[in-house]
């Protein structure tokens, strides 16, 4: 039962992403062509509100459901991997028109072919794990 909240938050997320058309291949094209403010507005406003939220949480030592003070893990800075990995991700994002969240949500929207996109993404993650030691980080 402890998982039910994640299920409910997931449902909320799927509804938001569908209703605002963020999962649309066309919207991603529009974004990469700078023809609409929509995607920039979504990402920008969520990041700005996210920053305010993080600052407040840290300031007041806000506690999570388990009574522990929320701690933020720092992302690891790599000399190469953030940029190189990011670029490869971007190439794929423009091709499929979907980052991992939308891939899943599109299946819920009835676009079952995105199951193949997800399998390919899993294979991509697997390949990364297999050759990780040989890649610059």
């Amino acid at each position, binding site marked *: 039962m402890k998982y039910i909240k994640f299920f409910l938050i997931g449902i909320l997320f799927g509804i938001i992403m569908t209703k605002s058309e963020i999962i649309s*291949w066309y919207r991603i094209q529009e974004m990469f062509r700078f023809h609409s403010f929509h995607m920039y507005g979504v990402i920008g406003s969520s990041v700005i509100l996210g920053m305010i939220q993080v600052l407040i949480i840290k300031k007041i030592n806000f506690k999570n459901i388990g009574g522990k003070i929320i701690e933020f893990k720092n992302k690891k800075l790599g000399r190469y991997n953030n940029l190189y990995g990011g670029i490869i991700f971007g190439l794929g994002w423009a091709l499929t028109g979907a980052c991992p969240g939308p891939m899943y949500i599109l299946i819920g929207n009835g676009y079952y072919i995105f199951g193949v996109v997800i399998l390919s993404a899993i294979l991509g993650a697997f390949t990364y794990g297999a050759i990780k030691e040989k890649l610059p980080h």
Partner: protein
Amino acid sequence: MNIIDFISKPWPWYVAGPMISVVMFLLLWSGKTFGISSSLRNICSIAGAGRYYKYFDFNWRKEIWNIVFIVGAILGGYIASSFFQNLDPLKLSNNTINDLSKLGIVFSGELVPNEIFNIHSLATLKGFLIIVIGGFFVGFGARWAGGCTSGHAISGLSNFQLPSLIAVIGFFIGGLIMTHLIFPLIF
């Protein structure tokens, strides 16, 4: 925006953006961090990849919440498209419609171009490239970069993380190269 519009029309950015930050908050409050591409790693681990590669050798039972979240998101997509469907066709900017038509992609008014995203196009070079290679790049790139749009762009930038800013710049370099330089060659 009245309630009928809210249900039957697409949500503008100033509704969606703040709501995504609410999702981020709810996960933080639940003791987790918003980030979806880690699920790809978890799935590999659940399937037993930890026996072969160290990267997948961790206690995936602790990360099950991430899979539950995704199952919820899929159901959310189903609920939104079945019960709160956007009744009008997608309003894509005319400039994008024109650009795409020059590449031979007809704007269908749906969420994705069906002529590309169907099971038959998998057998064509173009379809295989977009669906399989595209998906592979997303999974490989996200894991190499240490996160995707949710983990880096939303969670990371919200926490003023330099690695996330670098990754997001990378996302856009890749996306712009693909859209403006490689698309004209593929289509």
